[in-house]
């Protein structure tokens, strides 16, 4: 006799097994519709491989396993797939899940099977594969895929293979009847599993309340190494860990599986299914289900096709809906009440319990815990149910976890013994759910956080990359520009040089203008500088002449210009000397601006008068009233003009008293020079812009406009100068030799300019004859210069000079 151990706690509820063992297993027949849930096991739901309208034969796979922890689903009989839809499934929630619906044809036509006479011919992996393909999941109640269970993860050596035949829960007799009637299948399945695992011993643990089954098993296992171990009846000896404890004395450590201690437990129903799958090639398409309870007339066990609706099965057992208060799936200890009987039998449905009110009255109201400790005594997992209860009630799930909440097997022994009718297991189930939900939510929120942070960093990175690219582009552009500028500098463009010179000169003049009473020394140094430069330019001209260079003309121009500049500088010096002596003498220095201003005002007033006169004339033609209205304004304007003119006369006489000629022709000359320089600069800029960016219309037009404006200004200044010279003539009829010389210089200057312009025009005509705008402009400039030269010559002749070589004649 083998030694058996005892486990802690346990209870002895009334068994109520005799009702359903009175008759042999009956076939439940083929119902019209079968509902095959895709998830009848632990793990990933199977995936349908049939289409709606497809005919399937008995044993044909209708949904395949996806992923390692999954099992396929097979057609339990022949028929047509009419739907793949959500349907109520056996679950305490009463919720729906996806099912394949088959309309049976009653032919029960088998698909082709691959039977195997001798399993020893097959390798263990073949057997495992066939077990997996047969869709076998643990029939004890949990529905764990058997193929996975038979293949321990770390290939641990299995010392003891245990067949769980305890069936400790009251009312249920499915395994009992299976063993009584099909003991050889159970033993055959065990032998097949043993051939894979090669355990040291094979045990069948069976409670002593099933003498017929014990006898049948012993008979079937007579010539094998299998030992049938009879254990005392005590709930929950059928719990995996409890049965292992009873048979081997070993305890499965917390958080481990039995394979870790070299033990494996399989249900007897699973064993029979494995046998049929290997021997006949039949997948798991039916199971034995107990239908019992006071509300059925003929309680018994039924060989039921998976997917048969419970209502069909209950009808076969003589179900009286009026008597029944509740229908449970599973036993009274661990089962759950069904909200409907329109639910299919699945691989894990071992019992349907149709109970009357008398049999299963409504639970008593919960009363306060009296700390009697009976639950702790009954707990087969040696937990502290009271503590767990407190924590669950106070929602302190972390503490409950610390008190090993997850080691609870939910056997219900504690609830059963509780004198206060506290639904303890319900509290534990609730706590476990809460902990799991919280963990799932935490996982999800962690994932969301991760994704959020990743997104943030990605956006930031993109931003930075964009910024870096932008910077790189800007740098490249700056470099290119610098390179271009350097290139332009390197290739000394004469035109550009001229422009630069003009700019320089303009600056210098501006400086001079801003400081009219510039230091004499500075002016002297300017003169010296101009002299030096003139000498230098003349030297280079000589050299160029000697070399027959192209630059000769230009250099000659430059020499002339430099000479002008020298003269100008000298004049400025003389002027400054004179001015300083004047201011020393008189102490009064009437600003010439007054006169200028007055002149400007007069001009404005004259314009106004002209406009008014025009308006009046026009008005006289069309509207005499309006002319009358305008007449006073004209009078007023005329009066003002007269006033201004008299003011100017006074001012001039004032200035003549001060020996300062009214509108100082020299000053005007400076202005003309300035304007000319500016014009030149502008023209240079315009040419440059045209050459470099002909596409930039805006720039070109802007510059063109600027050039025109400068031209206008220049003409105005020149006119003012000639006016002043004419005006100056009567004031000083006897022109001094000095002034005559000035006029002479003017002519020279104008001639220089004319020749320069002509040179530019010639150059433009030869170099870019297609640039009509430029040529036209230059032509115009040449004409204007010619006029100017003529004007200067006239002035000189008027002044009494003699023209040596009039340009107009040349």
């Amino acid at each position, binding site marked *: 006799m083998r030694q058996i151990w005892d486990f802690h706690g346990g209870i002895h509820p009334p068994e109520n097994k005799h009702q359903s063992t009175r008759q042999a297993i009956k076939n439940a027949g083929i119902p019209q519709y079968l509902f095959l849930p895709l998830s009848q096991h632990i793990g990933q739901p199977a995936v349908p491989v049939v289409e709606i309208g497809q005919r399937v034969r008995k044993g044909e796979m209708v949904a395949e396993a996806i992923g390692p922890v999954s099992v396929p689903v097979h057609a339990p009989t022949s028929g047509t797939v009419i739907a793949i839809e959500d349907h109520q499934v056996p679950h305490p929630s009463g*919720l729906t899940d996806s099912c394949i619906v088959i309309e049976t044809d009653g032919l029960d036509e088998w698909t082709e099977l691959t039977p195997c006479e001798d399993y020893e011919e097959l390798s263990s992996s073949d057997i495992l594969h066939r077990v997996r393909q047969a869709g076998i999941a643990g029939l004890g109640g949990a529905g764990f895929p058997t193929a996975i269970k038979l293949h321990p993860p770390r290939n641990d050596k299995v010392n003891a293979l245990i067949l769980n035949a305890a069936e400790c829960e009251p009312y249920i007799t499915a395994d009992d009847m299976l063993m009584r009637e099909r003991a050889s299948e159970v033993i055959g399945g065990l032998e097949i599993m043993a051939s894979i695992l090669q355990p040291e011993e094979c045990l069948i643990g069976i409670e002593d309340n099933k003498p017929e089954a014990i006898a049948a098993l012993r008979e079937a296992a007579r010539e094998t190494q299998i030992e049938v171990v009879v254990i005392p009846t005590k709930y929950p000896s059928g719990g995996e860990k409890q049965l292992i404890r009873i048979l081997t004395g070993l305890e499965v450590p917390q958080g481990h599986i039995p394979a870790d201690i070299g033990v494996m437990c399989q249900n007897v129903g699973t064993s029979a299914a494995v046998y049929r799958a290997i021997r006949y090639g039949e997948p798991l398409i039916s199971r034995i289900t107990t239908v019992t309870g006071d509300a059925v007339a003929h309680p018994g066990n039924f060989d039921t096709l998976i997917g048969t609706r419970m209502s069909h099965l209950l009808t076969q057992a003589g179900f009286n809906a009026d008597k029944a208060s*509740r229908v449970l799936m599973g036993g009274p200890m661990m089962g*759950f009440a069904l909200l409907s009987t329109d639910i299919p039998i699945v691989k894990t449905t071992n019992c349907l319990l149709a109970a009357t009110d008398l049999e*299963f009255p409504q639970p008593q109201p919960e009363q306060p815990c009296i700390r009697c400790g009976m639950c702790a005594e009954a707990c087969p997992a040696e937990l502290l149910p009271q503590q767990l209860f407190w924590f669950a009630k106070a929602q302190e799930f972390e503490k409950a976890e610390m008190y090993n909440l997850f080691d609870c097997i939910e056997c219900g022994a504690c609830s059963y013994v509780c004198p206060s009718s506290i639904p303890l297991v319900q509290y534990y189930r609730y706590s476990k759910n809460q902990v799991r939900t919280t963990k799932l939510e935490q996982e999800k929120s962690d994932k969301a956080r991760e994704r*959020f942070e990743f997104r943030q960093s990605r956006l930031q990175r993109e931003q930075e990359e964009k910024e870096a690219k932008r910077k790189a582009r800007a740098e490249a552009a700056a470099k290119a520009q610098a390179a271009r500028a350097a290139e332009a500098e390197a290739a000394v463009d004469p035109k550009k040089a001229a422009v630069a010179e003009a700019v320089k000169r303009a600056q210098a003049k501006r400086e001079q203008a801003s400081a009219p009473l510039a230091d004499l020394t500075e002016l002297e140094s300017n003169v010296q500088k101009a002299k030096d430069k003139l000498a230098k330019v003349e030297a280079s001209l000589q050299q160029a002449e000697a070399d027959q260079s192209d630059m000769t003309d230009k250099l000659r121009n430059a020499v002339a210009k430099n000479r002008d500049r020298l003269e100008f500088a000298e004049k400025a010096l003389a002027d400054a000397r004179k001015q300083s002596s004047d201011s020393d003498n008189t102490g009064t220095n009437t600003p010439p601006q007054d006169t200028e201003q007055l002149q400007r005002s007069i001009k404005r007033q004259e314009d106004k008068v002209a406009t008014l006169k025009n308006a009046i004339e026009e008005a006289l033609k069309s509207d005499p009233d309006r002319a009358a209205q305008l007449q006073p304004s004209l009078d007023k304007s005329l009066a003002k003009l007269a006033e201004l003119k008299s003011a100017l006369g006074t001012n001039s006489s004032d200035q003549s008293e001060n020996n300062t000629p009214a509108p100082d022709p020299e000053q005007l000359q400076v202005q003309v020079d300035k304007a000319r320089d500016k014009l030149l600069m502008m023209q240079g800029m315009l040419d440059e812009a045209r050459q470099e960016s002909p596409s930039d219309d805006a720039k070109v037009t802007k510059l063109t406009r600027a050039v025109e404006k400068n031209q206008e200004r220049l003409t105005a200044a020149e006119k003012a100068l000639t006016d002043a010279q004419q005006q100056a003539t009567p004031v000083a009829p006897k022109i001094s030799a000095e002034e005559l010389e000035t006029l002479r210089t003017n002519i020279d200057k104008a001639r220089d300019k004319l020749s320069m312009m002509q040179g530019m025009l010639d150059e433009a005509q030869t170099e870019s004859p297609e640039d009509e705008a430029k040529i036209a402009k230059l032509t115009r400039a040449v004409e204007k210069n010619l006029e100017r030269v003529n004007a200067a010559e006239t002035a000189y002749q008027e002044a009494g000079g003699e023209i040596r070589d009039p340009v107009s004649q040349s």
Partner: protein
Amino acid sequence: MSVVIIAVLALLALAITFGAILGFASVRFKVEGNPLVDQIDGILPQTQCGQCGYPGCRPYAEAIAGGDAINKCPPGGESTIAALADLLDVDPMPLDEEHGVSQGKRVAFIREDECIGCTKCIQACPVDAILGAAKQMHTVIVDECTGCDLCVDPCPVDCIDMIPVGQTIRDWSWDKPGSKPIDSRQIIATDLQAESNDQEAA
């Protein structure tokens, strides 16, 4: 008198020694950032919806650590407020309705026929849960969607719905016992009465 001086000096020496040790420890074991923010952030539901008025959960966590009210998170609801109250040791308060009401878990759903592929929702999604490209139909990765609503407004054709997530068999959980008057599903061990009946019958 010398006794007093010795005592004062001794205390001074001790003060300097311990001060130096503390100073060294505060530099050597300096904690970067505020660890409380991480804890608060761990409690917040990470929908990143911005209903609290902050641009995401972490900024709100920082605000709470800085003394802001704990009741501004509608997606978290009462349980988050309770957890925050527990962590910060303050009184739990009802959800501030100003920031929205606690709705059940929802996910975005794009009516794909109407989607014009403008990618506006993709840019709005804080957790990159929307797939799609310009002028291609977009779709929501349901498992990644936090139900934050942020994609609904930018949609120019209003083709995004927020669909409440229904209870499935896989996430169903038992109610707390006693929370419903009678729950006949909770059957475990009710045959205690049957035993007494048997005894009475016997």
